[in-house]
């Protein structure tokens, strides 16, 4: 049940594109044709499904304050969380390189149609954002982390598929010249985002009105601070 809830939430309510604007650059650049959009979307699902659980392990056993406990008691007070950006991005870059090699080997036609966009997945904010949100929302188990990764990937896939379909159709309509291309895409995305906001009450029956972003932003740092205090307290003890 918990898995299903997180899965639906990450696809519809916290949709990467419409709620947090992650991965917008490739979303705008690769959405001219449905076929390339599908290829990139599938690659994003795949990379997210691998990197989020991997980074969860890194976070749990290496980076969190006190995560190094398994090495021995004297390491329990270490806090390496400032290294998380560099560790996460290293994992992602490695995985993307791996995917690139595999795709080139097994499906050269897909490889050619994706072209430059495959390496660009490494700098797609949706991927790093997935890992960072996983860290800041404190997802409990590796199973949930995998669910979160796959769900966000599918959400991104849906978004790029929808916009690509709309852009293929809009070619036949009479858009004001200055809005053609980028401008109208932005505005359509805005309207789609308004539509997706209506999913907000899906799991709570409409009780939960406050926007999601603010809530996470406010809740999580307080907890972080109390943890920091704990770590500081630990450090003081060690020093004494």
């Amino acid at each position, binding site marked *: 049940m918990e898995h299903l809830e997180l899965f639906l939430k990450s696809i519809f309510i916290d949709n990467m594109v419409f709620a947090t604007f992650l991965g917008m650059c490739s979303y*705008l650049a690769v959405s001219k044709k449905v076929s390339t959009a599908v290829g990139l979307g599938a690659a994003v699902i795949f990379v997210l499904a691998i990197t989020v659980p991997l980074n969860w392990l890194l976070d749990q056993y290496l980076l969190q304050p006190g995560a190094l406990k398994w090495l021995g008691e004297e390491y329990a007070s270490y806090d390496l969380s400032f290294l998380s950006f*560099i560790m996460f991005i290293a994992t992602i870059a*490695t995985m993307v390189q791996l995917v690139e090699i595999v795709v080139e080997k097994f499906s050269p036609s897909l490889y050619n149609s994706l072209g430059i966009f495959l390496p660009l997945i490494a700098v797609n*904010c949706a991927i790093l*954002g997935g890992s960072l949100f996983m860290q800041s929302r404190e997802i409990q188990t590796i199973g949930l982390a995998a669910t979160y990764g796959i769900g966000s990937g599918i959400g991104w896939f849906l978004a790029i598929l929808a916009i690509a379909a709309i852009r293929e159709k809009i070619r036949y309509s009479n858009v004001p010249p*200055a809005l053609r291309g980028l*401008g109208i895409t*932005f505005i359509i995305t805005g309207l789609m985002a*308004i539509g997706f906001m209506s999913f907000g009450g899906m799991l709570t029956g409409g009780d939960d009105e406050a926007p999601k972003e603010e809530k996470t932003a406010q809740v999580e740092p307080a907890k972080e601070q109390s943890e920091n205090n704990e770590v500081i307290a630990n450090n003081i003890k060690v020093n004494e």
Partner: protein
Amino acid sequence: MGLLSKKDTKLITDPLADNNPITIQVLGICSALAITAELKASIVMSISVMFVLGLGNVVISLMRNIIPSKIRIIVQLTVVAALVIIVDQVLKAFAYELSKTLSVFVGLIITNCIIMGRFEAFALANGPWKSFLDGIGNSLGYAVILIIVGFFRELLGSGTLLGFPVLGDPIAKTGLYAIGYENNGFMLLSPMALIVVGIIIWVQRTRNKALVEDH
């Protein structure tokens, strides 16, 4: 300007309008949209990007002859990640409240495509001084859009600018509120950021017909 030749000045002024990273090159959109509900956050974000892009461009430009081209993406990401960690730690130390509002978006500067885009397109082929100017120019172009969007969203959404009430007091009904004006809370929600950027692009392309695309 004795310090800057004509070509150098162009490096800074070009990205402000005709080659703007956000509206023309379509780079770095994610953070441009997500944190613009407040003007202050937009300004801090612009400064952080300026620091990372300016310095990163110089570093990459200095290393451009020794980076093997096969692993250049990982090298570039490492340089950016290191610079972003500095920004993140400084923000946490001196502006904790603000770093909470920016939440994960400071970390996402790493994957801001403007930075990768400029490394690939400029720093790998040019000297350090030129790359520095290019970095500053492009981050100024980014800042312009962020500040315009932040200005309108904060003004129309909560009636304040940088946290100061400029349209009067909505509870005591002074200023504009006395004649029945209401804050448009919708401006604070995410979809409006997209629509505001859409309108900026519309205005820009109406003024400069050369930029109009065909579908």
